[in-house]
């Protein structure tokens, strides 16, 4: 008997706070943590069955053209090689998030440099790689190819549904006491998950089992089945552990389909792992962005107008476009508003979701612009933001479900010592280092995704949670254990969590920060279902039932579960769907960043000295994993501000820095001094847990605080990220 909830109205009951176990929110360790650090958590490629063959993918080395032939024979003659596959079902692009159907297929049309067009399968990985490196492709190269988004020959689309206008921004700009009209650019980014994309495919008759590394298994199952032209009932995907995704594993990718085709053809299991270089070239990039931002404000810094137009790119037939302006409609007030988006069609690696698509780059630019407005108006950047927090969504005219931006700004400023900041750039020097502080707001839209889960309370008083949900390193195992433990009155070691198997109830998957809240709600409902069943057995009403430490307490009776259940299991099922609360209120998470940097006065090298993030995301389900998510987000923010850039060669569009030696992510030495404060909040509009998404919040706007700190340190305004030393150097004073 499943408990179903459509989020049509606010939850006022806030059950979790009324529970007795008191483990929700606590910073417990991940239950699977020990397995991971000991190397005993088995990831996709660790599941290699005896007798499996290995496949290595082969890339095309033109940006646009035709693959007319593949010289199979020469490679088939090599020792150990079992097959060369160049099948039109191979994926051209990986699937976009929540596509639920096959992405573009077919390898004979090459649409970007590095497109994976064939698979060589051999007895050993080394033999397969050797064969793959030997495989000769006959490729034509189309000279009429656009690889640069700023190429005037690029087709530019400006979709109407991405455009909105309120009032008269042009007029507001003219009338403004202070205005900013600047263009900001961010480079393409890679997800750079630690575990590369890898799959093992195994057939048993018509049934395919895939050990994969994916974020959203129910969608991935449909995508894989569709790509192979088989019934999705015949596909099972297993992904109990995923070594990071950051958007890159939302949809199935090339290796899964290739492994499945090869395994079918050869009648043996086939493992295919992409190399780091193939992940860089073949998997989603975040589009580069160019953003024109206009701000109009009165004498008092109160905004009268905001304009945000973005130019992004993607392959000709892809629908995804980086949603750069996502938070702009609701973050700050202003009666005159303009939003727009333009997509250049280029032959570069497919663009898709990478680490907080939209706000990560869009809010960063907006928050640099706000710093510029603070500078010209002479208003402290913190004060400027406080003056512009709207009391309702200024675009939709609906109330916020909850908006703690003001508190986040004030708490952060206090804790960080913002008042110590000198308002005059370039005035604080420590030896060779120019020191400055910067800040920015954080915001990210909140989402709920349909999700189901099953919870079984076994006769011996252990709860088993089952869902095809994934844990992509975020802490799903921990937070689901805590929700069930709290609801059923069980210590954490009496909760078992089984995830990452499409045979289990359909969960939300992990992505868009919605996983914990969506799937957590399904688990919550399943536990409610069990509580109701317990009430029936005990003949009490739910309000008078207390569950704690494996006992049910009602009135003056206190019974262990084992006694109530008498060896039978209670099965609860939960099912949540988004409803009217999505439209009735603006649901978002908010926060603030404060950063202090040193900029070397000789070299222009920027080194972060300390950074604080204050975040408000509804109920915190686990203080430790939530904090880790925020630290990770801020780390990506540091990367975006100072380091990360996928370099495309302008001549053929190929990615030049396609490994982790030259695609610079922050290393430990770049991220010391990070601190996170989580605000206490409940949001009943979001779901009955009162929790909102937190995974991506920590990156949205983070880079701006650092870039703004560089300006405070040096007076140099960087509008083209990352702020590498060459961009700062030009503006530094001569050596004394």
């Amino acid at each position, binding site marked *: 008997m499943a408990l179903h909830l459509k989020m049509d109205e606010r939850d006022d009951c806030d059950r979790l706070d009324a529970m007795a176990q008191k483990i929700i929110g606590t910073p417990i360790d991940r239950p699977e943590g020990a397995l991971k650090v000991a190397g005993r958590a088995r990831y996709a490629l660790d599941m290699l069955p005896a007798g499996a063959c290995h496949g290595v993918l082969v890339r095309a080395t033109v940006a646009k053209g035709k693959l007319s032939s593949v010289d199979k024979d020469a490679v088939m003659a090599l020792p150990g090689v079992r097959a060369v596959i160049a099948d039109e079902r191979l994926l051209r692009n990986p699937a976009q998030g929540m596509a639920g159907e096959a992405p573009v297929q077919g390898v004979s049309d090459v649409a970007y440099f590095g497109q994976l067009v064939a698979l060589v399968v051999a007895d050993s990985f080394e033999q397969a790689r050797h064969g793959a490196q030997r495989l000769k492709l006959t490729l034509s190269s189309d000279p009429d190819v656009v690889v640069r988004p700023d190429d005037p020959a690029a087709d530019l689309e400006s979709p109407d549904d991405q455009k909105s206008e309120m009032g008269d921004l042009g007029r507001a700009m003219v009338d403004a006491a202070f205005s900013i009209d600047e263009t900001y650019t961010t480079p393409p980014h890679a997800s750079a998950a630690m575990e590369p994309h890898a799959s093992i495919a195994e057939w048993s008759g018509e049934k395919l089992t895939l050990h994969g590394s994916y974020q959203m298994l129910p969608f991935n199952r449909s995508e894989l089945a569709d790509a192979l032209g088989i019934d999705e009932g015949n596909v099972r995907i297993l992904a109990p552990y995923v070594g990071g995704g950051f958007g890159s594993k939302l949809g199935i990718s090339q290796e899964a389909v290739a492994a499945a085709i090869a395994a079918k053809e050869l009648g043996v299991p086939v493992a295919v792992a992409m190399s780091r270089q193939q992940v860089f070239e073949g998997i989603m990039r975040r589009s580069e962005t160019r953003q024109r931002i206009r701000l109009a404000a009165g004498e008092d810094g109160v905004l009268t107008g905001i304009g945000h137009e973005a130019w992004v790119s993607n392959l000709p037939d892809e629908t995804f476009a980086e949603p750069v302006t996502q938070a702009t409609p609701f973050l700050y007030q202003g009666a005159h508003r303009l939003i727009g988006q333009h997509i250049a069609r280029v032959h570069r690696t497919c663009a898709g979701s990478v680490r907080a698509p939209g706000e990560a780059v869009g809010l960063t630019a907006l928050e640099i612009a706000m710093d510029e407005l603070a500078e010209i108006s002479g208003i402290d950047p913190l004060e400027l933001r406080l003056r512009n927090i709207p009391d309702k969504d200024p675009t939709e005219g609906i109330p916020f479900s909850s908006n703690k931006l003001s508190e986040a700004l004030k708490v952060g400023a206090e804790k960080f010592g913002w008042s110590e900041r000198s308002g005059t750039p370039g005035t604080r020097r420590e030896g060779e280092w120019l020191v400055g502080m910067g800040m920015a707001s954080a915001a990210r839209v909140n989402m709920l995704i349909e999700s189901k889960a099953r919870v079984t309370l076994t006769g011996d008083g252990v709860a088993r949670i089952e869902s095809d949900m994934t844990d992509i390193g975020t802490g799903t195992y921990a937070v689901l254990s805590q929700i069930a433990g709290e609801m059923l009155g069980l210590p954490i070691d009496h909760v078992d969590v089984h995830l990452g198997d499409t045979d289990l109830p359909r969960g939300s998957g992990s992505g868009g920060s919605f996983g914990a809240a969506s799937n957590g709600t399904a688990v919550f409902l399943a536990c409610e279902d069990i509580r109701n069943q317990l009430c029936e057995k005990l003949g009490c009403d739910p309000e008078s039932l207390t569950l704690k430490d494996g006992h049910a307490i009602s009135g003056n009776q206190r019974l262990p579960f084992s006694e109530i259940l008498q060896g039978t299991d209670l099965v609860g099922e939960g099912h949540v769907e988004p409803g009217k609360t999505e439209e009735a209120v603006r649901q978002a998470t908010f926060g603030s960043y404060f950063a202090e940097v040193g900029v070397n006065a*000789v*070299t*222009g090298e920027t080194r972060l000295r300390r950074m604080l993030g204050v975040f408000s995301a509804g109920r915190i389900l686990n203080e430790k994993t939530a904090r880790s998510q925020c630290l990770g987000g801020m780390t990506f923010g540091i990367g975006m501000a100072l380091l990360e850039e996928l370099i495309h060669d302008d001549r053929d569009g190929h990615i030049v*820095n396609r490994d982790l030696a030259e695609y610079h992510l922050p290393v430990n030495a770049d991220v010391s001094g990070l601190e996170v404060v989580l605000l206490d909040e409940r949001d009943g509009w979001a779901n009955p847990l009162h929790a909102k998404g937190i995974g991506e919040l920590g990156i949205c706007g983070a880079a701006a605080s650092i870039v703004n700190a560089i300006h405070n340190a040096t007076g140099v305004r960087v509008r083209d990220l990352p702020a590498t*030393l060459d961009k700062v150097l*030009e503006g530094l004073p001569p*050596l004394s």
Partner: protein
Amino acid sequence: MIPFDYQRAASAAEATGLARDGATFIAGGTNLLDLMKLEVMAPSRLVDINRLDLGGIEDTTGGGLRIGALVRNSDLAGDPRVRSSYPVLARALLAGASGQLRNKATTGGNLLQRTRCYYFYDTAMPCNKREPGSGCQAIGGATRLHAIFGTSDHCIATHPSDMAVAMRALDASIEIEDSAGNRRSVAISEFYRLPGTTPHIETVLKPGELITAVLLPPPGGTRQAYRKVRDRASYAFALVSVAGVVEMADGRMKRVALAFGGVGPQPWRNAEVEALLEGKAPSAELFEQAAGLLVAKARTQAGNAFKVPLLQRVLSATLNELTKG
């Protein structure tokens, strides 16, 4: 990776004997194995030299040090004599790679590590260094890592080592053994070759020749500094680096040795700059003049033009640090 033979040599003579017909020595393997996996290098045979008696750091009769070719980068950086008498070398080593890599990387291997040019690493790209005569795709492409001195129209790659830059400032020489068992020593200034029309030939080593040691003369100055400028705080190759060794006498710079990384196909030195400085009292104007002279012959690309002002500033600041007080 192309299939290859593997043989472990028990002596230098055996090693040099085996190292023919496309064979290559393997020491720490931290550079070679990556390149082999990508098929940028495809030796027919690996001759493992790790069991040879080429470890150890010894005092020389001349007051210098003899560093065995197999001394690991970590051990060299931690040696008390290196730390006290050749701090520029210790600092350069510690500024390179990561702890794990330095534990594995050897002195000989570090000297011979290949360029980090992006195009060299991608076998789909023309590259004269990897495939002589195919062209240089870096020119006109992404050149943040590339050289501004000593380049040619055939190659603009840098030598990426930090250690070798310090050794160049220290006037090290390299001891080499040939297959007949003869040992000779070559000054580091003569060891690397400019790319010219043959960028694939990087040193004066002939096939099969083995580096057995690096010899350091007594340090030519007590004031030493290594400064590395890079995109992140650790674990990145130098955009530019400066190794400086200065001896002061009566308020003047008696001897000056300066070597530069990240800017040339070999650790770069400029005798005119040193001559300009020697015998003079330090001053900001003099340093500026020296910096101007250093970059006078720089040849830049769009992506690396920033190295010119950067190098000038870093040189001035380093000289300042070396001569003050």
